[in-house]
């Protein structure tokens, strides 16, 4: 018989050898355990940078960041033994708990999703100690946009979760699911400046996810770079005054500083409080704002299209004089037979024609531009003349984008030859077919911004400067501003400007007259087939040293000489003098005394 003590010794040695081999396998050969160990303890955290702040032109803060705390859950790791006290801690019902949990689980059981958005400071303070008892739940600090003012929503825009389609299109691969991105206004336009650059940090955590240390002393960490601060050109006081004037109305006001192209005010009415689209408000209020029949999300100054109406006569005058088809003081007798007219038949010259807004005069002078008689065929002749005319019109910034630094700007429309060919057939149209363009009607469509820009060009006596809302980013001035001289003789502007002065002094714009202001401008009564005409005005002040160019459109408010000129004149006065002395005019605007007697509020809003 074998010595039994020897058997026992052998067993001890064999077991020790088995252990040594097994340990060799899991410690040296198999690398999975090392990876699993790092996955266990190394937590990758994305550190979101502070989004850039936004200031107005006098450096007062408009948009800032406020911290909020989202309660996150990883459903697979979640363990809530005492649902009742958990719900009590958060102030939710047990039914709500189940719903939220199911929702998170449906999204993913292993990925974190928001269990409760934006805990209030008090709730956060209360739960942060207790949360350790509920595995799978943690708090993610985040910032949301906050606003010191309840205006300018159309300029500022908002931020929201990046969309699936944007993620697919994002070639830089910067954005991740759940990231926030600027959606409208400067938040969108200046997204790459405002967002900064996110950082990633690797932390060593214990089994509860409590951070114990930096991983490898932060060797792999990248530090978040905060977004750049943006300074706007907007004069907050003027903007808010303009918003006040436009309250209850539908329309736009755009005020520019002619010398620089700075946008001083950009009002889209009706608008909304930007706070309504911040953080968790977004999902709550967005659907309402989007479906609201007054379209508060529609940025009218850049996106609404109206016929320019009589304001367009200023352009007509310059083009005709430039083409040499009419002299400034050339007297043209109108008999009122060519086109419908409010100005009586009689003798007109450029200044008077602008002052009195003579439709027939401009009908006649545009005919001279279009029908030069260079071809025998009236059709071919009109074609050549129109093409030239159209190019001149577009020099004034019509029918094209002005490249303002805000998203969603539209072209407007100056119909092309091809377009008319499509409607009437090639060489089947002549001046009589397109004559309504002569008075700024027909297919001509402009935005309020383009009209303000026109006023600025006239104020500058022929210089175009790109309108812009951002003055500087941090300390770097806005680089994307073009300054161009229009190809017209500078002396031509003076005739038109004098006519505009007379419009306000003794023409359709009389209501906006103020001796010391020296406002020059042109009213429009924009024909509206759907209801009451729109009231339009563009102009600048003071005449000789223009400080402000302004355009106003008030929808369904009738003649341009009523609402629009009043709004524009008040804004000019406010900017030039810092205050408004004409209380009666302000009341006239605020109380909507300009409305035709038979028009009720309903006709305005129902359009």
């Amino acid at each position, binding site marked *: 018989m074998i010595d039994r003590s020897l058997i*026992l010794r052998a067993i*001890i040695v064999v077991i020790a050898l088995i252990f*040594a081999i097994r*340990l060799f396998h*899991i410690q040296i050969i198999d690398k*999975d355990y*090392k990876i699993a160990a790092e996955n266990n303890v190394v937590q990758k955290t994305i550190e979101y940078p502070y989004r850039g702040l936004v200031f107005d032109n006098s450096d007062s803060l408009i948009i800032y960041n406020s911290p909020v705390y989202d309660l996150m859950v990883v459903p697979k790791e979640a363990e809530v033994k005492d649902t009742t006290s958990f719900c009590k801690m958060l102030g939710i019902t047990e039914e709500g708990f189940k719903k939220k949990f199911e929702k998170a689980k449906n999204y993913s059981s292993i990925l974190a999703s928001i269990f409760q958005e934006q805990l209030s400071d008090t709730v956060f303070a209360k739960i942060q100690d207790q949360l350790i008892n509920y595995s799978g739940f943690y708090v993610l600090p985040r910032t949301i946009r906050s606003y010191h003012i309840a205006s300018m929503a159309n300029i500022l825009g908002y931020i929201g979760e990046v969309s699936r389609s944007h993620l697919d299109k994002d070639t830089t691969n910067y954005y991740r699911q759940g990231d926030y991105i600027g959606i409208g206004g400067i938040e969108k336009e200046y997204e790459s400046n405002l967002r900064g650059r996110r950082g990633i940090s690797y932390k060593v955590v214990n089994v509860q996810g409590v951070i114990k240390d930096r991983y490898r002393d932060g060797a792999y960490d990248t530090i978040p770079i905060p977004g750049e601060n943006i300074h706007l050109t907007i004069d907050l006081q003027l903007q808010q005054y303009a918003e006040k004037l436009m309250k209850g109305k539908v329309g736009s006001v755009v005020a520019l500083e002619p010398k620089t192209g700075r946008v001083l005010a950009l009002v889209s009415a009706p608008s909304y409080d930007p706070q309504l689209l911040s953080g968790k408000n977004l999902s709550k209020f967005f659907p309402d704002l989007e479906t609201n029949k007054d379209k508060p999300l529609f940025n009218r100054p850049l996106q609404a299209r109206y016929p320019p109406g009589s304001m367009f006569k200023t352009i007509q005058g310059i083009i005709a004089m430039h083409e040499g088809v009419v002299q400034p003081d050339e007297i043209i007798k109108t008999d009122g037979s060519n086109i419908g007219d409010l100005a009586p038949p009689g003798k007109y010259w450029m200044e008077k024609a602008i002052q009195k807004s003579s439709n027939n005069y401009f009908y006649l002078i545009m005919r001279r531009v279009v029908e030069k008689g260079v071809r025998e065929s009236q059709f071919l002749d009109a074609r050549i003349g129109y093409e030239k005319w159209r190019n001149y019109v577009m020099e004034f910034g019509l029918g094209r984008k002005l490249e303002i630094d805000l998203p969603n700007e539209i072209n407007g429309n100056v119909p092309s030859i091809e377009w008319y060919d499509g409607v009437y057939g090639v060489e089947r149209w002549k001046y009589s077919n397109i004559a309504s363009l002569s008075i700024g009607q027909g297919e001509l469509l402009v935005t309020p911004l383009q009209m303000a820009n026109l006023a600025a060009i006239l104020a500058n006596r022929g210089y175009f400067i790109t309108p812009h809302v951002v003055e500087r980013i941090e300390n770097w001035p806005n680089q994307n501003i073009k300054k161009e001289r229009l190809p017209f003789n500078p002396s031509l502007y003076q005739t038109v400007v004098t006519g505009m002065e007379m419009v306000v002094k003794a023409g359709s714009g009389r209501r906006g007259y103020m001796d010391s202001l020296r406002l020059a401008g042109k009213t429009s009564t924009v024909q509206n087939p759907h209801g009451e005409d729109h009231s339009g005005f563009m102009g600048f002040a003071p005449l000789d040293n223009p400080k402000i160019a302004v355009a106003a459109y008030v929808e369904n408010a009738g003649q341009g000489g009523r609402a629009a000129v009043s709004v524009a004149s008040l804004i000019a006065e406010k900017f030039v003098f810092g205050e408004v002395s004409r209380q009666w005019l302000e009341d006239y605007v605020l109380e909507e005394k300009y409305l035709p007697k038979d028009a009720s509020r309903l006709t305005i809003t129902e359009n």
Partner: protein
Amino acid sequence: MRQDLLSRKIDWVTVLLFGLLVIAGWLNIYAAEYDPDLEKEIFDLSVSAGKQFVWICASVFIILVLFFLDRNLFNSFAYVIYGVFIGFLLLILIGGKEVAGSRSWIGFGGFGGQPSEFAKFATVLALAKYLENPNRNLKDIKTLAISFFIILIPMTLTILQGDTGTGLVFGALIVPMFREGMHSNLLAIVGSIVLVFLLTLLVNQTVLFVVIAIGVLLGIGLTAKNPKKLIYVVGVGIVVTFVVKSVDFILTDVLKPHQQKRVLSLVNPNIDPLGVGWNVTQSKIAIGSGGFTGKGFLEGTQTKFDFVPEQSTDFIFCTIGEEHGWIGSISLLIVFSTLLLRVVYLAERQKSRFARVFGYGVLGILFFHFSVNIAMTIGLFPVIGIPLPFFSYGGSSLWAFTILLFSFVKLDAHRMQTLQRF
């Protein structure tokens, strides 16, 4: 005079190995629970390592007391000590306090004590005493039965308390019985049953039945001419089938849910990744992440940051694996195996059967703890909560092992005198 004699007779190799294990254990307990945010010292009584230092000092005192006691005390009072601890175990069943799901603790002043740890010592003593008489032959069915009876009483009482792990340790006393001449077939049968049991867990039952059927048919074919062997083959087939079937029965009907999980998670740790399987997975991750040389003292992350459960008691081996790598683990295996082989050597040189049985009893218990504890941390055995001797945190377990080992060292020191008595 007597002390000089004693110090010369003591087996210092065992004492040295014991010292190595205790000190290494103490350092690893400190590392296992080390919190880099708090940076507490190893002697700080608010950390486990600080308390363990107190337990170690106390065990040194216990060793001294043991050496001063009369050498015949163990022999004379063996049954009394056994009786007292069986009494304690009964007492706990009636009213002990619950710790970690099982009631095996009773209050000992400020500290909790675990009588089942000491009952192992008492049982070894009683078995040694019973087999002291050279006329008792373990091939004799009566002697065998009484020996098993001595083991089964404390084993049953401990399992009834809910502490299955410690209960199973008593089974290790089959080692001295084997050494003293128990029929080796008995051990083989028990071993085969355990093997079939494990196979049942690891292999699909239908596959197993097919294999058994093929084996039996093959056996029948080979032994068809010999009816005696034929009966034997068929008998084995029936027994094996019965074992396989009973495993299923034991798993689903006898074991408690948490024990079922432990057994099943051995086969597939992904069964319950956040439950018991999680323990095994995390334990393997901790050890595996140590690599060849380990992450360095106090540099481990898996144990320190609580990914491994019970990291200073039952899973203390993970800390060595993680912080000291394969080198550290192998060193521990070597020290432990050397201690075990040394105990075999000491037991073999005993002149009295009492001391030899006692020595092999000590060996059985230490070996069971050592192999089962390490096997469970590296995923070779189900998780049964038993400590690594001299290493794991805990006063009563350290003291019980100290008493066990040093009673034997004391007996060994007096082996010549014992001879004179016979």
